[in-house]
């Protein structure tokens, strides 16, 4: 009964506050109040909440509430995540180094949820949850940019160890929607307070990736305008993917039925892969034949034009040659197999389908590339050396027991 636990925790904190044990902090509009028994938590959560709300209001428009109360849940209360209008809950762990921003991630995720609270139907619930996941993930990357490190927890989950050499949010404005996902947004996947399940493979997860794919295609400014317009026009009523697509299509002047059909409503697995690559010929006249395969039943059409017309150039294929030169070809994502023939002065060294990582709905991107002879990447060499050190530690620990 997460609701009851939450209510109990909230009531207990309010009583503590009345007795003078809690600390409250006010920030600029929209007003934020932080209730926590941990003095260290208050300034951090207040600052993050203020920044996140400023960002989210700028993206999505105003909230219907005048103030937000952030509750730092006590130990043994149900996990954070539930949001009701005007109240969000997070948990600031006992051992939380400055670089461990998990409480902040949880807080931003719930603040993002505030913007989408609305009555939903069975048909619209997954897309509503997808909007929460998408905006929450994006807001986390944006608000925590430049100071956001991986911080796994050890020793029963009590000890946090930020990894300074792994920055999670380096530049969300760089190549569009960031790929990074966060446990604080996605877990627990089947919580009762979600609009719909966010478990792996759920319609909401797929739709959230579809939204990121769309952002990579049309860019963040267009996506942000669409989100704000959708929210304004919906005015608190359920938002269906069809309604969303219609608003985006109206703004951009091109139909987007494929987005709903292929990426949101379809359950078919989308997976493009480099099948075969062969180079033949010599003396500067090399013919390279590349076969790109669509392994899943799902398609990324990227257009509403029928396939009978000329092929749509929807998915790029990058070919890099041994002499360092590079060229691009395009395939129609609806084709089961696409064959590309290229004549060049040297053989192909690298082939990549969707090299800019636009089609994020591709279920397995590890098969999107082909290399004739993988170059020894300096970062890769260092990571492999790190893995070797880790393996030795594991071996030493295990052999100490035997």
């Amino acid at each position, binding site marked *: 009964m997460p609701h009851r636990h939450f209510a109990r925790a909230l009531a207990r904190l309010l009583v503590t506050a009345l007795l003078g044990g809690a600390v409250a902090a006010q920030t600029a509009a929209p007003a934020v109040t932080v209730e926590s028994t941990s003095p260290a938590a208050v300034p951090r959560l207040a600052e993050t909440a203020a920044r996140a709300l400023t960002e989210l209001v700028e993206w999505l428009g105003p909230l219907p509430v005048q103030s937000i109360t952030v509750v730092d849940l006590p130990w043994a209360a149900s996990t954070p995540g539930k949001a009701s209008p005007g109240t969000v809950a997070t948990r600031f762990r006992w051992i939380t180094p400055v670089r461990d921003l998990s409480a902040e991630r949880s807080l931003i995720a719930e603040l993002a949820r505030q913007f989408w609270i609305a009555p939903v139907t069975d048909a619209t619930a997954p897309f509503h949850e997808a909007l929460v996941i998408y905006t929450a993930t994006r807001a986390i990357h944006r608000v925590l940019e430049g100071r956001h490190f991986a911080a796994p927890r050890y020793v029963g989950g009590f000890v946090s160890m930020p990894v300074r050499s792994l920055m999670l949010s380096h530049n969300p404005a760089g190549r569009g929607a960031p790929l990074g996902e966060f446990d604080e947004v996605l877990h627990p996947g089947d919580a009762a307070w979600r609009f719909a399940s966010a478990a792996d493979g759920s319609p909401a997860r797929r739709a959230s990736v579809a939204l990121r794919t769309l952002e990579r295609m049309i860019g963040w400014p267009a996506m942000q305008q669409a989100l704000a317009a959708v929210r304004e026009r919906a005015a608190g009523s359920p938002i269906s993917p069809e309604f969303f697509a219609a608003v985006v299509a109206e703004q951009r002047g091109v139909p987007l039925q494929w987005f709903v059909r292929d990426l949101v409503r379809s359950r078919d697995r989308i997976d493009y892969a480099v099948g075969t690559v062969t180079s033949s010929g010599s003396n500067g006249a090399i013919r390279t034949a590349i076969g790109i395969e669509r392994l899943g039943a799902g398609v990324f059409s990227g257009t509403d034009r029928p396939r009978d017309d000329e092929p749509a150039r929807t998915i790029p294929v990058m070919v890099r040659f041994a002499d360092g030169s590079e060229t691009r070809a395009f395939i129609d994502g609806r084709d089961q197999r696409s064959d590309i023939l290229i004549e060049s002065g040297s053989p192909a060294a690298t082939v990549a389908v969707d090299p800019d990582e636009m089609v994020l709905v591709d279920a397995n991107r590890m098969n999107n590339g082909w290399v004739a002879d993988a170059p020894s990447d300096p970062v890769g060499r260092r990571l*492999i050396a790190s893995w070797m050190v880790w393996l030795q530690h594991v071996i030493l620990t295990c052999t100490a027991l035997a």
Partner: protein
Amino acid sequence: MTHPTQSAARAAAQGLGLALRAPGLLLSVLAVTVIGAAPFVMAVEGPVMDSLAVQPPVSSLAPSEVDPEWWQEFQRHASGLAATFAPMILGFAAPLESVSALLDGTRRPLAMMAPVAVSALLWAFLWGGVLHRFFSGAGSPRAFMAAGARHFRGMLAITAMAAAVSVGLYLTVHAWLFGVVYDSIASRVPSERDAFLARVILYLVFGALLVTSNAVFSFARIQVVSGQRHVLFAVAAAWALVRRELSSVLALYVIFLVIFGAAMTAYGAAELLGGARIGGWRAVAIGQAFVLFRLFLRLAFSAAQVNFATSVAPLPPAPDHASTPPA
């Protein structure tokens, strides 16, 4: 009569001294550890390099920085040993994760069985040479190899028994302590700090069992090197020694655990505190140096155990098998 702490401290000091005077042995053990890990490194290298080769460059990252998005994508689809290729491999997280997994009984992927089994085999050979070196003082490579080969079967049998006992403890006692018992306590305590303290106490309870088991099998190895040919008699003699000298044996473990804990704390503090950002090859070098330090501690601890076992001589006589006196 010598105080238990005094005899343990003396043995520990002698062990540290002996290990310090055996740099060749330390480097040889390090070489074997690295060589044992090398084939598995090659198995992971292929998928990582292939994946990085087709990765688009990220303009906001320095060429030496890791793209977290690539890493998350790689982890999502990696399998086998490559599935262990996670941020925990970086810097201080590596030893912390391995110790944490020991405390929490974290299950490793099945693929990890192979490197662990290979290392167990290598150490079954190394133990014979290492203990012989500290027991007899004979430091030649030939004596080391001969002792390793001579005692290999006995050491392997003890390793198998120790592994079986450890697995049994994890499947029964650990599962109970950190399942039913911990959950019951954690749901009753008012704060996270209290829950952590409760967990630490449970770690100590379980750790005491592991230490006892480890002590019995460690001293059994010494018994084998000292001439006891029958493994079961060696274990029985070691059990008798541990029971008779329990406080000294525990003191010896505490001394080395404190040294290890202090080194871990210093390593962690160097990464966590201050403005330093230890990364790149420097972090790898520091990590490898810490592996060397762990190996040094292991050798020193073995030497201390040998010293301790001989100092509480006579070693428990074998019931019916003739023992070869120490060289």
